[in-house]
């Protein structure tokens, strides 16, 4: 089907190969055909696809001995390695000037997300790097584009420089740069109007801005949904403006973003950021190697670990783990753990990061999230004593809790059952840990309650 993700396709290919003891020329061809279709459906440029499948074939033939031993693992590895090298291996961050403002210009086609990304970028720099940021409204063409940037600026408490829409963008850029210098801003982010790369007057305008304010970074916005033509667009912008990096927007959609990968491969311009949602915090530094894992359906384990570390105090996690391992586990602990999980983002987003869990549908994710909320409401209606010792929950208590939380008796029973399952899971994990099957420390990472929900 056309809507399968690249990882699903690969998983199917890998399954096909799994059953066979050795890789022959014919099943290899069949597999490469699937790889080709998968990549083309992911909007990877057809030239890149050609080279990609060719190099996989070359490598696979070279590794004949290993293939006989374990074809599926070998295929995963080769495809993964090739994808990684196609994406580039390191994440490339922005370089900041030391004693003067770093000037960043955002360019791209209409509707790729320049204005939103300008706000996200400003927030990222302000929050994570403590930079003093100035946003400049250089889109004088689209109705209300300046309003949009001003609203975003006030949402994130970042200054917005604008001269209205009757002044030329070149002049706006110059004046904004002056202000950034005089008032000691660390970063100036210039938003520009969307334009076609073949629109000569508008491209000249960008050129004039570049000559006047010499941006340190010129970032091109590429929509994750864009098709085969994206490479032509990137080439045209790059020829005129010397693009220093790509921001890939709308990666939270179900588009596979193959086009941006093609751009990296064919032009060498690194992808620096990825837009992953509608909120202004939804901008991530782009990690090429992890993206390959994600495409392959291995799950973005590193990102998950990082997110966990960022949001949860490590000490607390260790304490929790110790407590859980000792078998002492209350309803309060269960809710607290689940709240931490929620802090990591929506459950749906989290699931995508965990390997081997591609089968959860959006509906199921929503149901799971709703269930978590229900659980909290119910536990909050219990006395501290009941939370510590759920075994004392007899009918009269249940009726009271049901009334207090606006739920039914059956709901309460479900919570208790889930608690028991989680507790059981903790016990088992403890045994596993003793027998060395689960690496120590993993306990803190695995949220209880998830086991009962799967």
């Amino acid at each position, binding site marked *: 089907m056309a809507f399968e993700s690249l990882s699903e396709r690969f998983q199917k290919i890998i399954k096909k190969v799994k059953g066979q003891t050795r890789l022959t020329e014919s099943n290899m061809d069949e597999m490469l055909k699937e790889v080709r279709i998968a990549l083309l459906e992911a909007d990877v440029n057809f030239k890149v696809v050609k080279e990609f499948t060719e190099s996989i074939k070359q490598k696979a033939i070279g590794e004949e001995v290993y293939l006989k031993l374990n074809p599926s693992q070998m295929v995963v590895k080769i495809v993964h390695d090739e994808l990684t090298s196609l994406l580039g291996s390191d994440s490339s961050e922005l370089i900041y000037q030391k004693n003067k403002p770093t000037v960043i210009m955002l360019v791209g086609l209409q*509707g790729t997300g320049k204005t939103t990304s300008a706000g996200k970028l400003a927030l990222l720099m302000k929050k994570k790097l403590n930079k003093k940021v100035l946003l400049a409204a250089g889109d004088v063409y689209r109705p209300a*584009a300046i*309003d949009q940037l001003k609203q975003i600026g006030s949402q994130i408490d970042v200054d917005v420089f604008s001269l209205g829409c009757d002044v030329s963008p070149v002049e706006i850029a110059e004046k904004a740069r002056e202000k950034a210098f005089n008032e000691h801003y660390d970063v100036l982010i210039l938003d520009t109007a969307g334009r076609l790369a073949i629109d000569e007057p508008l491209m000249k305008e960008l050129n004039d801005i570049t000559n006047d304010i010499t941006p340190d970074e010129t970032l091109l916005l590429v929509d994750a949904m864009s098709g085969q033509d994206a490479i032509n667009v990137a080439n045209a912008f790059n020829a005129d403006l010397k693009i220093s990096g790509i921001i890939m927007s709308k990666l939270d959609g179900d588009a596979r973003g193959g086009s941006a990968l093609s751009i990296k491969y064919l032009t060498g311009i690194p992808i620096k950021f990825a837009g992953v949602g509608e909120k202004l915090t939804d901008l991530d530094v782009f990690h090429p190697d992890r993206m390959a894992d994600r495409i392959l359906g291995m799950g973005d384990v590193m990102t998950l670990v990082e997110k966990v570390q960022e949001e949860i105090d490590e000490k607390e996690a260790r304490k929790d783990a110790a407590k859980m391992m000792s078998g002492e586990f209350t309803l309060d602990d269960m809710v607290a753990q689940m709240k931490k999980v929620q802090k990591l983002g929506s459950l749906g987003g989290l699931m995508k990061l965990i390997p081997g869990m591609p089968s959860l549908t959006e509906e199921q994710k929503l149901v799971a999230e709703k269930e978590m909320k229900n659980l909290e409401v119910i536990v909050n209606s219990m006395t501290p004593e009941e939370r510590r010792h759920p075994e004392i929950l007899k009918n009269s208590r249940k009726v009271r809790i049901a009334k207090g939380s606006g739920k039914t008796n059956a709901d309460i029973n479900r919570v208790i059952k889930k608690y028991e399952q989680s507790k059981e899971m903790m016990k088992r994990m403890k045994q596993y840990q003793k027998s060395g099957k689960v690496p120590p420390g993993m306990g803190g990472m695995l949220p209880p309650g998830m086991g009962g929900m799967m």
Partner: protein
Amino acid sequence: MGLFKLLKEKFSKKPVEETSTYVEGMAKSRSNFASKLDELSKLYKEVNKEYFEKLEEILIEADVGVELSLKIIDEAFTESKSQGIKDPKTINELVVDKMFLGYATKGGNIHNEIDFVDNGPTVLLVAGVNGVGKTTTIAKLAHRYIKKGKKVMLCAADTFRAGAVEQLTVWATRLNCEIVVGKPESDPASVAFDGARKAKENHVDLLIVDTAGRLQNKVNLMNELAKICRVISKEIPNAPHDAFLVIDATTGQNGLSQAKQFLDCIKLTGIVITKMDGTSKGGIILAIRDMLGIPVRFIGLGERMEDLEEFDLDKYLYGLCLGDKYE
């Protein structure tokens, strides 16, 4: 070979003016695709397997989609064998024929203009993913029907994106037409409901409802869209009478997923393909038609409010495939 020749004859007899907007607007898309087809046919004296592979690449490069491209090329290959066709140009024509036929025979008859209901306002809902040009398209459509003497009202139900309401308000002022707006971050369905009520009260012919851009995999946002439709239909039975999905011509294979999931959620009656004045070919509309039967109703060819044309398959394929030679 009938159709393609017919198509050519049809256009060579027609005055140039009629096709000129398409030819101009699509100059960039056309030159790429048409010249590639032409160049390829000159490289080969006789078609062979390699020729078909190259042909397939040209289709894929136009974002026609892997599945449909493979299907068209496979069929052309089989026919060339069974009928002994070796001439590259004839094969090219056969391929374009298949694109034409495929589109024309999938789904119902194609009527592009909005059908106005007899009593009360006709409601058009405009939806799509972020950044495809919904608001601009609405301004263009409003302009089109105001020019036709209709009383048009806009409804700014994109209460989410910063500046969206202001953007539509600027257009309403330029177009000198009424607009219904809600409070920022208010429930879009309530704004739509207000719009429907006011449209009825003010005896408006056409109410165009703008909605926030939403990615089709966001279940909550898609449910919200369905709710907007439900709420409108409470005030005006059978409304929205038309629901357009706006698709950006640069969109690749994800366009299929967009069309499918929006169709699952609301009763789509057509597609508006925007930004066709760029270098993208918008071939995904052929794949969408092939798979889901949704027709393209209008085509956006620039940023001015006049830059909207009724979609015409003949003209589209003419602009895309035949190139300068037949002007």
